[in-house]
């Protein structure tokens, strides 16, 4: 699988480092089933009460949407036990209508684009 999954290169909105450098997302936390066209990402928000968890999840979703073939179904989840409103965040991140509406919000889209703008891209 030589997709961009192995280096998501998304910047944490509150820190200058990429999510991978901050251990928010690692290779272990991404499951890919190519045959079933299914991807599952489990991510750990930087800080437990981090209000940016939804934004990080949104960035991951947008990055994958732009990198993967359209046949893929993507589930994005907060690592269990790492966030107090885990169920609520998971429900929002996996409701495609909510995601679509959020991405039509120009302010939110600007934040997402900022987090996704490449400083340095490596492709394996």
């Amino acid at each position: 699988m030589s997709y961009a999954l192995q280096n998501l290169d998304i910047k944490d909105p509150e820190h200058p480092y990429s999510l991978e450098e901050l251990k928010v997302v690692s290779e272990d936390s991404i499951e890919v089933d190519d045959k079933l066209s299914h991807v599952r990402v489990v991510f750990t928000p930087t800080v437990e009460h981090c209000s940016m968890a939804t934004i990080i999840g949104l960035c991951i979703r947008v990055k994958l949407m732009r990198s993967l073939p359209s046949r893929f179904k993507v589930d994005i989840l907060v690592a269990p036990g790492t966030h107090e409103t885990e169920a609520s965040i998971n429900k929002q991140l996996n409701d495609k209508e909510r995601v679509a509406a959020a991405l039509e919000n120009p302010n939110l889209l600007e934040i997402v684009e900022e987090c996704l703008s490449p400083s340095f891209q490596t492709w394996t």
Partner: protein
Amino acid sequence: MELLDSNVDLKELQKLQGHADRVWGLAWNPAPHNCGGASAMLASCSGDKTLRIWQMGPTHRLDCSTILEDTHTRTVRSCAWSPCGKFLATASFDSTTAIWKYVGGDFECVATLEGHENEVKSVTWSSSGTFLATCSRDKTVWIWEVQPGDEYDCVAVLQGHSQDVKMVQWHPLVDVLVSVSYDNSIKVWAEDGDSDDWHCVQTLNEGSSGHASTVWSVAFNSSGDRMVTSSDDLTLKIWDTSSAISQTDTEGFASWRHLCTLSGYHGRTIFSAHWSSEGIIASGAGDDALCLFVEEKGNSIEEPSYRLLLKKEKAHDMDINSVRWNPKDQRILASASDDGTIKIWEVREIS
């Protein structure tokens, strides 16, 4: 494609392309002859902010006859025709609902319904033609009364859902409204006999054998004694709604009850379900599959049950957002997808 002891298949008749983004909703005109004598008209709405109208020509194929654009500034999420077929309502993420009127071969925007605080998710016209209902992420359901001169008055703002309301649907025969939500519940709304006040007469949640996650759609059968809901919990549920038609005002509202749960047929969120006039339930889901179900006949004593008639895997290349039977031709089904296309299908009996 799976066939289960019934000689039926689903033939793809046509693929409609043109939308530049995912197609969210579909609506067949119930009286297309009132729009310049067309034999069939299908409205589709999209993330590309437009509404397209597809009309059947002499070749029996649907062609795009109109594109309604430059009105909504965001995704058009849902569309619905008035019972007379001359008006079309479009609900948008831009928080407005537009009303279009067929005038001399074209559609003119004659009204814009404002009031919701954020994205409008669904719009539905009552069969009496008196009311319209809309719902939104702002958790409310609004009821509008149709007045002469293309005027629409808001007669109720219904609070009760604790989250985003995904869809509203009027009962086919009486002015009773159903709403389904991200809060996992189904609510039934009716007018109080004397006071003309709208209120919630029943809530169907997990405790009443309801859904365990977001409920995305609701549809009634043509006689109004059954309702089907579809959910993110991967099930379809059938409800007995016969009390809506069998009782009088004086008795108060008699509860609707759960009849049957259909599970194991879809592997991802079931976004839409629709009942044909013949009694076939069609469902479309995030697994790109389309399923057809019918009632299992012969159980006079036991609860009615439903069985899978057919499953069409990979009916589309991406999620199916809406499935709608043609009210004028009960074997024709339309499906809309994230892949930007609409497909027209025919259910055929094969010997």
